[in-house]
């Protein structure tokens, strides 16, 4: 098992090199870095994108800031795109409700780096520390905000196409087909489930298309937003796209299976009882799509991991496969299944990762 170590070592080497080159650049721009950078640790090396997400201070007034920086072509492109997204969001003239973003304090191309410094949104308490009812209304508020931005007209599509991905049934089905192939080649035991899921999506392609053209967020989970009072600030703008109305809800509900099953059931029930039948189906379709994406991520991690992390990856694949079957059968997620998985996960997670998760408010 040499590959896994190389992956982690490669990331660590990249992080050290990048940080030492970045430090004087950040200082010259009027900012300093915190000593402890938890967002670069733990299982971060498994995630894509060579860019650093750091915390620091503005030297002039000690204001806490979030810093994103990269010197790689891919990372620089991603950061420039993030900047463009932020600028364009302000110009969307067909939004009924505004999208709240942390203020961008600096966007600079300095030396070999592209750097974005934005205001660090301090939460008085983390999302999951709010009462369940508050969590329900906060998340519902964000989903309604996303839904209010529907790109339907000629003028809308001109703005959208120049900046964001615009996904309809064809793109979702194409992506799922790749997820399915990758999952099956990495773990052939997933074959039946992935083919069943693909059929479910293909049979309902028209539904996916019907509820597309809405602003959505492909990674809408609590560590990508901050709650201040009744307002929710979005952090990761690169994950914004125009696609199915329920993509962000689906990602959030899948995530809630692990972190607040009661809220997952409430939101599912709310959509079933308040929205039209086709919309509930669209939610299930998107949950299946997002689960395919997640399974691809974990099956792809199998050859990058070793020891406990490898065992944990296998447990994750088995857990999410069972959730996928639940969604396909339109059955509620079993609490027993979740608790059993959590026990195994906690026993197998490294201390470093547990720390990273605490910082992300997930533990």
């Amino acid at each position, binding site marked *: 098992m040499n590959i896994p170590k190389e992956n982690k070592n490669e990331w660590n080497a990249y992080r050290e090199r990048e940080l030492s080159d970045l430090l004087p650049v950040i200082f010259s721009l009027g900012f300093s870095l915190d000593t402890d950078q938890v967002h670069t640790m733990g299982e971060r090396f498994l995630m894509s994108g060579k860019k650093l997400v750091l915390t620091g201070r503005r030297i002039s007034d000690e204001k806490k800031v979030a810093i994103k920086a990269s010197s790689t072509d891919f990372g620089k492109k991603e950061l420039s795109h993030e900047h463009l997204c932020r600028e364009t969001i302000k110009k969307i003239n067909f939004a009924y409700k505004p999208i709240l973003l942390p203020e961008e304090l600096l966007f600079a191309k300095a030396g070999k780096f592209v750097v974005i410094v934005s205001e660090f949104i301090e939460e008085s308490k983390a999302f999951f520390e709010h009462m369940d009812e508050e969590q329900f209304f906060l998340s519902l508020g964000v989903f309604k905000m996303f839904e209010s931005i529907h790109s339907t007209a000629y003028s809308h599509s001109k703005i959208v196409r120049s900046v964001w991905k615009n996904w309809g049934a064809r793109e979702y089905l194409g992506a799922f087909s790749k997820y399915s192939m990758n999952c099956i080649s990495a773990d052939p035991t997933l074959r039946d489930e992935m083919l069943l899921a693909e059929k479910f999506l293909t049979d309902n392609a028209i539904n996916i*298309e019907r509820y597309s053209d809405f602003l959505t967020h492909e990674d809408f989970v609590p560590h990508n937003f901050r709650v201040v009072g009744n307002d929710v600030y979005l952090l990761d703008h690169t994950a914004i796209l125009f696609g199915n109305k329920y993509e962000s809800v689906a990602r959030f509900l899948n995530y809630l299976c692990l972190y607040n099953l009661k809220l997952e059931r409430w939101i599912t029930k*709310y959509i079933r*009882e308040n929205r039209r039948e086709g919309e509930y189906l669209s939610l299930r379709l998107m949950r299946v799509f997002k689960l395919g994406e997640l399974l691809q991520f974990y099956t792809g991690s199998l050859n990058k991991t070793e020891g406990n992390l490898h065992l944990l990856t296998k447990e994750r694949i088995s857990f999410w496969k069972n959730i996928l079957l639940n969604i396909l059968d339109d059955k509620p997620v079993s609490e027993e299944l979740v608790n059993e998985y959590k026990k195994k996960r906690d026993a197998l997670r490294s201390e470093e990762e547990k720390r990273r998760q605490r910082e992300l408010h997930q533990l």
Partner: protein
Amino acid sequence: MERRKIMWYNTKMRIVIAAPFYPPDTEDMAVYAKELAENLAKRHDVSVVTYARLPEESSGVRIYSVNKRLPLIFRLARFTATLFCAVRKADILYAENGASVEVPSALVALTTRRPFIIHFDDKTAIARSSKNLFLKMAQRFAQKRAISEVSDIPRRPPEILPFGLPPEKELVEYRASWENHMQKLTDIFNETK
């Protein structure tokens, strides 16, 4: 009143609804247009002409959609032509306000000589037309052609929360507001005969 009500319930009419929005659009007007179409379709032959790429389906309702992604002139022309074809064989044209529907509806009513009723639901469109001379003229043109104007807006369905008590009172009020609205439309439609 009772006699007219009986007439309404016994006579199947061919009604065309012209709507700028229709679900999956999330605007209140879209929700209203679909609910109205479904309510009317219980007893009448209902068609909807709307701007949408892939509108939601409703049983018993024929939907003709015009893609909003077309440039303005083309979509207005296509909407007018589609509406003309639908209204030619209809008894009533019922249109939502807003210039993109008002002007084609008034033109179609003029050429087909079908009774045309306009519903003032979109407050944003009303506010916009008060500030824009062209939109104001479009609205006046439509009002002149309409045999009746409706300003009544039924309630939106109350949200049913997954916790706490169900909103019984709001549900009763919502159903009552739709019953009243349908009654008002019954009276107006019967007057067109």
